[in-house]
């Protein structure tokens, strides 16, 4: 009857294996095959270089506003490497590295930031959802996919992502709660980059860690160094194994930092200091991982350089391809905006489609006239 303390069974842990100076905690080092290590590095690099390239394109007016991914590669690749092709990947929008690994052509990524829905069409056979703009709203989808796995007795898992800001949304809470109640095989990965646009973590939540929110769902929760791909790997592997074995969902928080503005439209000087960004620049995930690969003898300096070249070639080719596709009849077809709203075009929409057709016709007529005039004037001058 007295005043007693209720025991909370879960322990919230912190994990770091490869620190910012590439010092390794050998006792915790995961056993990852060399090929897989190389793959991880390759897609981290591919993500980074694509991101950088897209920034240049955006500055040249060749792309619309887009959220940059630099700094988030370790969380994305360290986790996604643990799921299989027929598992599901439900990203937010900074998991560029992981999406490329899952099979999204770079040109799709470029296309969707260039205003083409065709870019958000997941390739056939890729069990991914496209990037999700409304914050946290992808999380219930991930849970539903996982619930369906349970119902269909599939032994698959879902890996899904969200930011620190996303934790404030009701959808995030509801998704975590559903997942825990239904023991859905979902791994929730929070990219805690400490800012939601300009809003810092302490304005987003009163608690110290995102990981401890797992206690509200009786779910394992862990915080890892989000720039340490090995720590991310270990934590997400445990979670994936547990989910696949029927142990339900887990919450993993990767502590990291945006190395760039929020999007190409953002000016971070308004809300955070360059000095802090410089500090975090030193902790970024690729350099330490490259050192690790070298120390371990998995890749030589030459290998790393070769990979740079390979990646550079891939990115360049993709840019060319994307810009060609953007001029293709298929992608420019105005009817694309109407024809995929429903399986079939209903009557009233068909009437609107006809309106669009009339519009196009008039435009083409005008163009034809103009051209005719031009060639006339051309002939005269």
């Amino acid at each position, binding site marked *: 009857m007295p005043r007693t303390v209720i025991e909370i069974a879960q322990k919230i842990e912190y994990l770091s294996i490869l620190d910012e100076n590439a010092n390794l905690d050998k006792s915790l080092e995961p056993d990852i095959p060399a090929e897989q290590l190389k793959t991880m590095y390759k897609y981290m690099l591919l993500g980074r270089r694509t991101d950088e390239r897209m920034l240049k394109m955006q500055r040249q007016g060749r792309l619309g506003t887009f959220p940059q991914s630099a700094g988030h590669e370790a969380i994305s690749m360290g986790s996604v490497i643990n799921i299989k092709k027929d598992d*599901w990947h439900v990203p937010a929008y900074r998991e560029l590295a992981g999406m490329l690994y899952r099979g999204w052509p770079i040109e799709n990524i470029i296309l969707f930031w260039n205003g083409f*829905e*065709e870019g*958000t*069409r*997941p390739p*056939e056979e890729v069990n991914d*959802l*496209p990037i999700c703009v*409304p914050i946290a*709203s992808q*999380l*219930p*989808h*991930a*849970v*539903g*996919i*996982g*619930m*369906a*796995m*349970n*119902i*269909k007795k599939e032994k698959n898992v879902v890996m899904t992502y969200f930011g620190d800001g996303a934790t404030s949304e*009701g*959808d995030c809470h*509801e*998704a975590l*709660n*559903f997942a825990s*109640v*239904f023991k859905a095989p979902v791994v929730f990965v929070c990219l805690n980059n400490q800012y939601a646009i300009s809003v810092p973590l302490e304005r987003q939540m009163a608690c110290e860690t995102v990981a401890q929110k797992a206690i509200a769902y009786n779910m394992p929760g862990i915080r890892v160094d989000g720039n340490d791909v090995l720590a991310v790997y270990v934590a997400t592997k445990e979670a994936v194994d547990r989910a696949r074995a029927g142990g339900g969902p887990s919450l993993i928080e990767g502590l990291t930092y945006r190395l760039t503005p929020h999007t190409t439209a953002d000016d971070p000087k308004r809300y955070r200091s360059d000095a802090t960004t410089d500090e975090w620049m030193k902790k970024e995930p690729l350099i330490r991982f490259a050192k690790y690969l070298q120390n371990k003898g998995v890749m030589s300096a030459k290998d790393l350089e070769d990979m740079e070249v390979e990646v550079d070639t891939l990115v360049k080719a993709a840019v060319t391809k994307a810009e060609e596709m953007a001029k293709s009849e298929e992608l420019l077809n105005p009817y*694309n905006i109407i024809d*995929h*709203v*429903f*399986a079939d075009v*209903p*009557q*009233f*929409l068909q009437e609107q489609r006809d309106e669009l057709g009339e519009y196009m016709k008039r435009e083409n007529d005008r163009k034809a006239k103009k051209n005719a005039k031009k060639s006339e004037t051309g002939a005269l001058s």
Partner: protein
Amino acid sequence: MAEINMAKAINLALHEAMDRDQRVVVMGEDVGQDEGVFRITEGLFAKYGDERVIDTPLAEAAIVGTAIGMSINGLKPICEIQFTGFDYYAFHQVEGHASRFRNRTRGRIHLPMVMRMPYGGGIRALEHHSESREAYYAHTPGLKVVIPSGPRNARALLHSAIQDPDPVIYLEPKACYRLFREEVPDQMETLPIGQAHVIREGEDITLVSYGASLRAAIEAAEELEEENIHCEIVDLLTVSPMDHLTVVKSVKKTGRCVIVHEGQRNCGIGSEVVARINEHAFLYLEAPIKRVTGFDIPIPYFSKERYYLPDAERVIVACKETLNF
């Protein structure tokens, strides 16, 4: 052939669908053990178990959001929102995702899911239990919005909704659940979504209605018949995509039209009916089209609900004004 009421007819369709198709699952608050607060899911939990008949936590956004996920992963979820008064909790999932996935992915991912919701007034319920806001869904591109009016079409349309490759909002006029019985065939049947039905022929005036309000239209037509006024009645059945061709055909014949629905008037379904008739039958109109609808106020608690809900008397007066214009 059996004579059953609408509640039973919807329940029958759910049984049939779950029987035929393993992918169909039913989910929502209290749909399992409790069999739904209106008992629409009667017998399902006992028959199909808690994996396919899922009592969910109390969170509408997650119900719709996880249903989206389930349909992405090969199931055909039918999710129940206990009352339309609470579907706004899920509106960002409906607007932001259910209505858009096919378009966003250019056809690669589509969502065969149904949102079942009891809607409308007339059951002496408290606040948030009597709303009729089908226009929100009709205004949202990418959604189909179906509203049955009787046992037989309720069952048939629910089958069509479940078989539809795209999300269907299936609104159940709760005032009709146990209002009357109708013969339904032994064999399961479907009805095309997006097709209105002329349920009564007449040459003097067209009444366009659907759902529970259709009763007021029918009653009015019967009373007017005694005064030798012949009403044609169009039951929309699908409020979006709306079958304006059927409406327009009728109005071209009668030259006059009254729309009857209990939802709010401002930017409601009736406004759209007027706009389409204006576009397609302008020269045939002999009088302005009247809207007999709920007022633009929150539907009153039940002590004054009757001042809000369209009744036959209001329809009759509107018809006469239209005829005497």
